[in-house]
């Protein structure tokens, strides 16, 4: 939707703004159904290998930093809250609040990605990168043998760790890009109580990415327990 559409009210193919709004929301939800299946392929593969190689997956899970994972969970849920508040601000036409909440959401999103990058670097230092540099050492190795898990199977766990969190991070990055556009538009005053569909649609996307993480966190960081 470009600017001219905002001024004329709705795009030419729609009857009115209401129809356009509904179409946008339905479109985003349909897209999210697609996204569910996109991640779904990964979750299915994960389920199979986790069932098959539980000890190895537990070992792998213990090599992740639980604190960072939990911290990121909090950050991301926080960003979902600010996003929800942003949508609300758009609904009620509070422009300044809208921009503020978008900025907050972006900050939290960026914080999440920063922590993720830190974790990745840590994994690289400890040679836990499947395919490229996978040679768990020292205490890590000890743990692995203690649990009688095969190194290749632990590597599989790390495949999933990187594929899943990587895919998720990619979605976050795209989300941040979308938010940046949204921020500019909100600062330009493009949205009103009559027209805030893009804010809402972006919000849906952001919450979805949050939901993916809500599952990734226990499935990757918490399996096998820490007792």
């Amino acid at each position: 939707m470009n600017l001219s559409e905002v001024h004329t009210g709705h795009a030419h193919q729609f009857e009115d703004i209401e129809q356009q709004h509904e179409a946008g929301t339905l479109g985003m939800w349909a897209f999210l159904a697609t996204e569910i299946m996109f991640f779904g392929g990964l979750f299915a593969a994960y389920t199979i290998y986790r069932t098959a190689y539980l000890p190895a997956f537990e070992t792998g899970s213990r090599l992740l930093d639980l604190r960072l994972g939990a911290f990121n969970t909090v950050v991301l849920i926080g960003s979902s809250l600010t996003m929800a508040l942003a949508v609300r601000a758009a609904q009620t036409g509070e422009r300044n609040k809208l921009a503020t909440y978008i900025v907050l959401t972006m900050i939290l999103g960026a914080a999440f990605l920063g922590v993720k990058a830190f974790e990745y670097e840590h994994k690289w230092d400890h040679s836990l990168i499947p395919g490229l540099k996978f040679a768990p050492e020292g205490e890590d190795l000890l743990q692995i043998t203690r649990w009688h898990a095969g190194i290749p199977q632990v590597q599989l766990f790390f495949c999933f760790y990187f594929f899943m969190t990587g895919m998720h991070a990619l979605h976050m990055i795209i989300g941040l890009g979308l938010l940046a556009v949204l921020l500019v538009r909100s600062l330009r005053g493009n949205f009103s109580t009559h027209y805030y569909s893009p804010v809402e649609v972006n919000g849906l996307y952001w919450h979805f990415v949050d939901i993916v993480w809500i599952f990734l966190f226990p499935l990757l960081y918490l399996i096998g327990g820490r007792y």
Partner: protein
Amino acid sequence: MHYPRIESHVHYLNVNYGIRSWLFTTDHKRIGLLYLASVTFMFLVGGLAAVLMRLQLVEPQGTLLEPDTFNKMFSTHGIVMIFFFLIPAIPAVLGNFLVPMMIGARDLAFPRINLLSWYVYLVGAILTLIAILNGGVDTGWTFYTPYSSTYSNSNVLLVGIAAFITGFSSILTGLNFIVTIHKMRAPGLTWSRLPLFIWAHYATSLIMLLGTPVLAITLVLLALERILHAGIFDPKLGGDPLLFQHLFWFYSHPAVYIMILPAMGVVSELITCFSRKRIFGYKVVAFSSLAIAVLGFLVWGHHMFVTGQSVYAGLIFSALSFLVAIPSAIKVFNWTATLYKGSISHDAPMLYALGFIGLFTMGGLTGLFLASLATDVHLNGTYFIVAHFHYIMVGGTIMAYLGGIHFWWPKISGRLYPDKWARFAALVIFIGFNLTFFPQFLLGYLGMPRRYAFYPQEFQVLNVLSSAGASVLGVGYAIPLIYLIWSLRYGPPAGPNPWGAKGLEWQTPSPPPTENFEETPIVTEEAYAYASEDHELV
């Protein structure tokens, strides 16, 4: 009767000119034509590969191509025909053109996403062509691991990425259709009044939305596995190659219904129009499209009966495969019953539609041989399967596609094509088709495996027959290509409704104006209400 010359009104083709007006168009009709040009090109590429294969297979020793080259040919053929021709063919060409018009809308819900989908398709197609010219790919269209992930020395990565990208064009098209059909129907156009073409596209879109992403992620995994060798599909590192097959077929079986459902929609339109009758059992036919789409998601494992899948899973998949055949059967019977006491004309589109019913029936019924476990053990991986799916995809979908192109050509171009040639071509294609692929059923039963660059002597006769048929078929396809292009310039003007058909798309001039209708139509009757008034042929 007098109708204005095409040039005399402003329509989507002459509203503006120049390459930019096409490349940046958001008009669904123009995008449909962009797709038409690109899928036709890809069909010729895939067809060329088929021609080379059939030439090679005339002789048992196969001296024309190196085995390696032959493998690249059938891979190219399968990948191009499936991902770049048949999946977009009807939805992205006819669907794009017709879905908004049939429901009385001015455009699809997201015109720019629609254009984007074409560009995405284009990028995928170009990458594939680059990969083919750069040495090709030799994994077959199924990309089975660990061959594709570890052992193949060809451009698997590039083609995988290309297929991944193209998948998104399919997703975007499906998304657009779903939203458009839900939200943008003309006043009075209730669900029970929708043309069956729309129902079929709705069902197809469901599959595109829910199935394609799984293929996408699978190809990502394949690509990563190929780059990193981390072991997801490599048994040496604890992976399971069968998991790839599960994920692949989770998309690719439903994908065969992406290929057939729109064709069924087209045939419903053709049969009703050319027998001037309401469809027999509208509700059943509409509902069976949805049933096929949903049940189609539950049967993917029937491609894995002999690959080491659990015997019990095999039983379940077999039973469900039989189940999904029932709604198809219902459709076939209803189409046939629609003919009863009709006023049947023998125009070219109708010939294609009738050809579709017959050949789809044969193709579908031979699918039962494969859904049945004991016989599939023998037939899996043989030419029987090749024959099965060509009967459905070439004998079925392409027939319907050509029928649809002929039917709506006057609407698309505003011109009529030479009817005699069209009927002649339909006949040549029908004969050539059967000559090409019927022998392959026999070959398969005799045990000739597919994807063989050379083969034992005893299979030669049938292979020669098949190759002979392919040349007839090739000629058959060339004829419409020529006269349709010819008609663009020399065809007589068609008028808004040359067939006396009922859909909304026929109530607007040919070619239609950019916004499709002068004013939004209001629908007051059921679909195919041919009995409601006298037909004036226009």
